């Protein structure tokens, strides 16, 4: 496409090189037609967290936590508490009486945890003097080990920090209990009473009668063949885990049974490329489940550079795309039952829509997956079209738009619904994507408001 620029002598552009589909420039369904570049970080921005409906906080390797107003793009606060990169960030909302307090809990590799409180006053007063109004108090704790992840159990009003050791804190930020972890990498994700802790261990958090908490190891999840990379709580009775080699296991949270096992195995189905495939077997990293999201009905797994949608109800694959991005998918989100969004190391954010397949043809994209309950097979049976016929529920994952702006990997994004989308990236920037029409309408409103204030209307 752009070869004319290169004068025919230079390397191909990335777009041309890649087998991944390219939507082109005509994107009628993409309503992000305005962007704001938010500068402030000095290093990779890794985390984004939504504070309330108009604020979000970003944190990264520079140890800075910046609070942004998503509506205006203003930087509201700059929290400088950590001397090293931030490893985890979460919000902790606590309702006491009619006031609601949101705390921002950050963990850093300088072995500190810090908690910053935001009071929920009226949004507009905050907007106006948010810059002056710092977090009401900022508490710092020093932990023995680097906290790798944070988990808030809102129903219990406690939060947990995990890493080399597992700590449970209450809402007043007092340490409730502590336990040495035997593994140094991990992710804790669970809810009330259940605390599966990667790798492969589930802890039970019990609330005893004197309201003291204790953490007990329940079970090792030993059914994965490789490291668990992602863990997600689907609902009270279900959680899901994904491993490095592409195993997705759905667990029963009470019985600790495997409800479904899915081994995602991307495979080329074209005969002509078969030889190459054989030569270069899929690398594990291409099948690694990087991220899991769920909305209770569907689980969206980011597998390598592809996407994989799994229905919990039918325990079947709903849709998939092997090469959704040029590079590893880092974060995904289910916007609705049919729309999803993903961001990747290739620096783009893509929006997808699950569409019913145009029958009877198979979508152009090649792909294969094996799906057996409790079966692990890389066996391939039949042509893909036949597969499709076998699974009428399969839908197509159609690219509806992409957002290109970052020059580095897009680490994470947070959606504010109609207000826009915030993405953060290794290029030290955040980009605020907005609906141009909505913004222009808002500006017009502001214009007439100002005219009225000036008495010139």
């Amino acid at each position: 496409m752009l070869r004319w620029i290169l004068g025919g002598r230079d390397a191909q552009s990335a777009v041309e090189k890649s087998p991944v589909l390219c939507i082109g420039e005509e994107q009628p369904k993409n309503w992000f037609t305005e962007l704001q570049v938010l500068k402030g970080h000095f290093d990779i921005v890794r985390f984004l967290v939504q504070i309330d409906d108009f604020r979000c906080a970003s944190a990264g390797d520079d140890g800075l936590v910046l609070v942004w107003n998503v509506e205006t793009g203003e930087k509201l606060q700059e929290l400088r508490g950590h001397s090293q990169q931030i490893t985890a960030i979460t919000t902790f909302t606590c309702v006491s009486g009619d006031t609601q307090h949101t705390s921002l809990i950050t963990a850093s590799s300088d072995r500190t945890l810090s908690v910053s409180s935001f009071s929920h006053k009226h949004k507009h007063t905050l907007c106006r003097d948010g810059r002056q109004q710092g977090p009401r108090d900022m508490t710092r704790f020093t932990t023995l080990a680097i906290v790798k992840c944070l988990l808030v159990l809102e129903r219990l009003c406690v939060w947990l920090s995990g890493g080399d050791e597992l700590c449970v804190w209450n809402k007043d930020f007092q340490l409730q209990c502590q336990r040495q972890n035997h593994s140094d990498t991990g992710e804790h994700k669970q809810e009330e009473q259940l605390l599966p802790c990667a790798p492969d261990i589930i802890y039970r958090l019990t609330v005893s009668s004197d309201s003291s908490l204790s953490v007990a190891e329940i079970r090792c999840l030993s059914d994965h063949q490789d490291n668990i990379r992602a863990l997600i709580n689907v609902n009270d009775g279900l959680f899901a885990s994904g491993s490095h080699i592409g195993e997705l296991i759905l667990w029963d949270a009470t019985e600790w049974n495997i409800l479904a096992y899915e081994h995602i195995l991307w495979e080329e189905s074209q005969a002509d490329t078969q030889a190459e495939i054989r030569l270069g077997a899929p690398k594990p990293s291409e099948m690694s489940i990087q991220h899991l999201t769920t909305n209770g009905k569907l689980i969206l797994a980011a597998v390598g550079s592809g996407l994989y949608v799994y229905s919990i109800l039918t325990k079947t694959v709903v849709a998939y795309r092997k090469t959704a991005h040029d590079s590893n998918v880092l974060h995904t989100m289910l916007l609705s039952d049919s729309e999803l969004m993903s961001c990747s190391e290739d620096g783009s954010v893509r929006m997808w829509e699950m569409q019913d397949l145009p029958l009877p043809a198979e979508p152009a994209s090649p792909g294969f997956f094996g799906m057996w309950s409790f079966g692990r097979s890389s066996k391939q049976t039949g042509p893909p079209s036949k597969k499709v016929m076998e699974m009428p529920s399969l839908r197509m994952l159609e690219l509806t738009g992409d957002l290109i702006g970052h020059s580095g990997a897009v680490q994470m994004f947070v959606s504010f619904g109609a207000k826009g989308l915030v993405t953060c990236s290794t290029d030290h920037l955040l980009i605020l994507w907005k609906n141009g029409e909505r913004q222009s309408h808002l500006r017009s409103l502001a214009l007439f408001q100002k005219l009225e204030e000036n008495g010139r209307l």
Partner: protein
Amino acid sequence: MIGSPDLVAFTKEDEYGEASPDPWALPEEFSVPLYPLADSNPWAKTSYAKFTKDFILISEFSEQVGPQPLLTIPDDPKVCGTFDLNYFSLRIMSVDYQASFVGHPPGSGYPRLSFVEDSRVVLGDSKEGAFAYVHHLTLYDLEARGFVRPFCMAYVSADERKIMLQFQELSLRFSQASECLKTGNRRAFAKELQRKLRDLEYTRSVLQKEEGLQREAGPQGIYSAHAVEKANELANVEKSIFEHRDLLRQISSYPRRPRRDPHAVTCPKCMTECLSEYEELLDKYATFASPLNYTEKGERREEGEGQTCEEGGEEEDDDEEGVKRRPSYIPQLIKAKSAKCFDKRLKTLQELCDETYYTATVELLKETERSFRGDLCYLHTRRLDGALRRKQKVTNFLFEEDLGEDDEEDGGTLRPFCAVNHAVDNSTLTHPPPIVLCPEPLELDALEPLDPLEPVSETSHTLESELGPGESQLESSPSDQTLETQESSEATKGSFSSEKSMEGHADGEQSLASMRSEPPDPDPDLTPDPEHNTDLERESSSEEVETTAGEDEADTGGDQTPVSLLEGASELEDGKQEECEGQRESGREGVTEEVCETEPELLVQIDTACCMAQDGFLYEASVPDSVPDVGHSSHPQPPHSLVVNQEPQALLPLQGDYAVGSPHSESPTPGLELPVGPPGDTVSRCSAEDGSDCTMSASTGSDRAASPLGYGGVVTLRQRKKAGQGALRFVRQYPFALQALWCLLSGRTLVVLGADEGRVRRLVAALALFVPGPGRCGERVQAWLSCPFTLTDLQRWKLIGLQRVASPVGSSMLYSLSRYSRYIAILDTDQKTLRCPPYRGQLLANIADHRTYIRRGSTYFLHVQSTLSSLAAKAFLFTFTHHLHMPVTSTEGPEGLEARRRSFLQEQLGLREEDSQILLYLSQLITQQYLQPATGGSAAAPCFSFNYTTSFLYKI
């Protein structure tokens, strides 16, 4: 005495047919007459002038040698060529209508200073081919006869019409210069008086001592002749002291005097400075006056009169010196007889005024001269342009080069102007005068002549150009008080005075002279008596009877004229002044000078379409009644209120718009010059002024030829015209110019890719014309970039010249090109291709016509400007039309709004999809500009809008 004097009539046409002006008609100032008159040959009259360019002449009526030229501006002997300055000085000094009473008027014991208002006269000399606006003023000199020294400043031009039509503005500019000179002169005079008083005090003390000695020496009760002589001498000295003290009092009362001259608005800061200074002096000498026991030096000391003489020559406190410290002044013994000898050397103009004020005045005059360069057509077009632009302040940032007048647009004619840089003063003043926040009392005083009848007459002039230049007529001032001068002027036939304004001034002068000590009441005597009017008319000029007989009706009927003239002048004045400021402050005197001189050339280059306009204008100028109804429709007020309407404007700038008060600083420190306004305001003002600094030269067309487009360089008019040439070439060369221009206008960043830097730069400079809101210094344009760009760059720059390199850097650059290809359009100058979305609109076909017949760059530039201006106007309309953005009823949903907007764009403005995008983008820019907080930029990052459309590759 003077042969064949010319009379240049300056009267007003009767307007019997002008009963009800059409309120919807376009203001005359904006319309261009359609057909030129056949007989108005613009070259006919100026051919025999002995000088080539207009210049300013300052002359003096020396009491020793008579009229003599002092200096010309520009100070270049070539300017006046063979023109006889001496003769012309004689001519212009002989028409001084300043009514000045000198010496002792009956009934007052002390010599009076004559407070005279300036007079303004237009004078012609057909033999010399010279016409002049002559501004007479009087400076005070303690040693001069009657304490006054008459001067005049004349703007000499070969074009009579130019002077006539620019009369108001010339008058304004020269009034400012005159005010400046006079302020300086009053300070110098006060100082001189003070010195004199000190001498006198000293003399008196010496005399008293001597007298005492005499008295002791002589027998008691018997006075020797010597003693009597001493006593007389002492009495004389004392009388002289009283006289001088009175003079001091008079001079210090000057600023509080009501001014009859609407142009004589002095800078409040200067005024306060002077006032405080005078008050100090007055206090000093008032206390001095009461005790007559100045016999002993010691006593003097005790009374704290340190500044009186000290025989030992001790250092004195020289706080009265105000401006600079100097070694103590050693008082001299003064001969009893006042020295008024004719063999003494008269003070030069520099000596008469403070040095600061003198240089400031000269600068001001230089600016005036500069701003009046070019012929009438040029000036007029510029004025129209400026007036139009001022009406479109909200959208000016889009395509117009910035006039930089955002701040003082309302300042208008009567903005108090101070040519002296207060910053300098402040730094050296030992007692900086207090900053007055509300100078209204003074100003109200000055504006006292709100008397509805009087000021009207001051402004009711119109050109009567039916009269040939050789024809002599006299338009007299029909006031009995000025009868004397009038008659004398008749006698000398010294051409003509600017009738009614003269009358007003003369009135003012007279009344001031006669009732100086009275409170400034609107004296009924001041109003011109119609009877006198007609009487005098009959006497003085028979031909003009019917004109002037209808004077009073005319006063009610046709007085809109002067106002519109005034307005035009004022508007123009602002702009010009600003321009010159900008020029000067840019510290490139030489360059701008040169450029200004070449401006007429530029004008000549403008093609026939413009010549039409020029003819039209000349036609307008030559037919007197086309001028009077200027602005009728826009100003349908009763005639008397017109002038009054203007005056309040004079008050506004005092509070708000004073920022531009001193354009004379070479290193502007605007913060110091803001006596009023809250701090936040100050900041914004500063920035605004800075901005005006950098843009000013833009409007005059000073060319920093070497400075490329981009940061630091101001995009000047000249550059823009050159860019017009480049753009024309682009349009003619590339069939896809249409698409490229559309990309620029609809906000899609255009990347001009090429290996040849010069080519890319030229193209960028040419295309920069079409970048909406390019910023004052072209911030939105990057002429040459040789590294990969990022999204932020795309957001910042709307037009980028990109180097094509065959290196790793180049490939990464190309990568960024392809990566961000959805946001940009790429124009490849090497392969002559353009990659951008398709454009199917009609709007731009007009300016991007491949087969255009326009051949000249400047013509094309103007053509483009007009198209873009109309676009901007449409965008303005779209932006500020309420119902296009807000629901009409509460039940209306966004769809209805959207439909209405679309139908407005498509049906009412006749725009297609792509053209609508241009308008939407412009509208968005306007909205953002309007919403932008006044103080600095917003904290939030700028928005970058785009849309997802497919691009195509266009080839030649």
